[in-house]
């Protein structure tokens, strides 16, 4: 198959999810738009998602990246639960990223359970775009 045609059709699909009770999603929307402008398909499912819903969406939409945005400090319970559910359903090929307000000491803990990178508030969007492009596993 012609290489350039292949590139045209394959898109990186990213789920931007906001679990937990926090209602602010301006940051998540900014990132969603930046990813779209970088040529990716972004599935944005809104605020107050449960871990179960996030994983179910990630499966049905066959996303390459799961971006979990959390501002309320709920990352220490919700993130592990998300990773647990992914494992339960044998979902191993997705890049998991976390964004929002995460205390520095929690970052290694998150990375240990399988989060590839934690992006703090104010991270330039090009950094996130580049990280995704460099690390996504396109198995398709």
């Amino acid at each position, binding site marked *: *198959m*012609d290489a350039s*045609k*292949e590139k*045209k*059709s*394959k*898109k990186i*699909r990213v789920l931007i999810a906001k679990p937990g009770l926090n209602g602010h999603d301006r940051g998540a929307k900014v990132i*969603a*738009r930046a*990813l*779209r*402008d*970088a*040529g*990716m*398909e*972004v*599935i*944005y*499912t*809104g605020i107050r*998602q*449960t871990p*179960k*819903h996030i994983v*179910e*969406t990630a*499966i*049905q*939409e*066959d996303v390459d990246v799961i971006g979990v945005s959390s501002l309320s400090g709920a990352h220490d319970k919700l993130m592990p639960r998300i990773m647990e559910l992914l494992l339960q*359903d*044998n*979902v191993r090929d997705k890049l998991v990223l976390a964004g929002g307000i995460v205390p520095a000491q929690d970052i290694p803990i998150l990375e240990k359970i399988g989060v590839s990178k934690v992006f703090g508030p104010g991270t330039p969007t090009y950094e996130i775009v580049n990280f995704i492009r460099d690390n996504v596993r396109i198995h*398709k």
Partner: protein
Amino acid sequence: MRALINRVLSGDRQAIARMISSVENGDHEVQDAMAELYTHTGKANIIGVTGPAGVGKSQLISSITRELRRRGRTVGVIAVDPNSPFTGGAILGDRVRMREHFGDKDVFIRSLGTRGSLGGLSAATRETIRILDASGKSTILVETAGAGQSDVNVMNHVNTVLVVVMPGLGDEIQALKAGILEIGNIFVVNKADVGDSDTTVKILEDMLEPQTKTDWNPPIIKTKATTGEGIPNLLDQMDKHSVHFRAAYKIIEKERERCREEVLSIVSSKVAEKAAEALLDSRYSKLIDKAAVRDTSPVIIAEKLLRSILQKDRK
């Protein structure tokens, strides 16, 4: 591949999702698998939902799904959103309205981008409908923006077309593409409490009158998707149309037309693929240079190219 096919047939969500991605990406390896899955299709009720932006199509689909589930059906939803022609990216947000169904294993929701090409949209949507059909979903709902010609094309792949509007659209209803009015089987006036829905119904009645079909008179139904008002009635009409459509001659006629068109479309795109490849060759490159300065013409080059492609395959 055998394993993947079986998993899709058994309703495995990951397999279904993977298969959809493969057809979206135009993977050649799944062609055989899709050909086999095709033999397992034809069972599902396929409903297209179209109409101007803002009328509440996504919310309506969510309500329809809720009622379908109440009636014991399994559901597939395909939500199509446009990719930016400049960046190629898209925000696929229709899923937001369907949250109440996220935890339901018998509702499969997939967001598709248009990915830029008219033909591309139709092919990916068509194949996704088939995958969901083969996986056992009893009803499949396909949502598009209803704004362009490609949306009218998508409606060729469904059995019942819902055209959704809302009160107060006025001129926008008049501007509904003629094609959409003709293919609509059921008209829905959503957000019926927001304005003068009776006037909207009357406008639609007037617009539809010149083309009263003798065998199916499209009903106009008022709904309020947020509360569920009118939805049971809508579903009854959808079922009625489904029975009407499946009356022997009608469905076979439509399927024949679809198969014919599909074959044409596949052949065209394969030939186009080969032609594009051939044009990279320096011989044709030079001919194109000549055509650009009017020393020869594109028609002559095309004839030459076509002869060459057809001859190559004869070996």
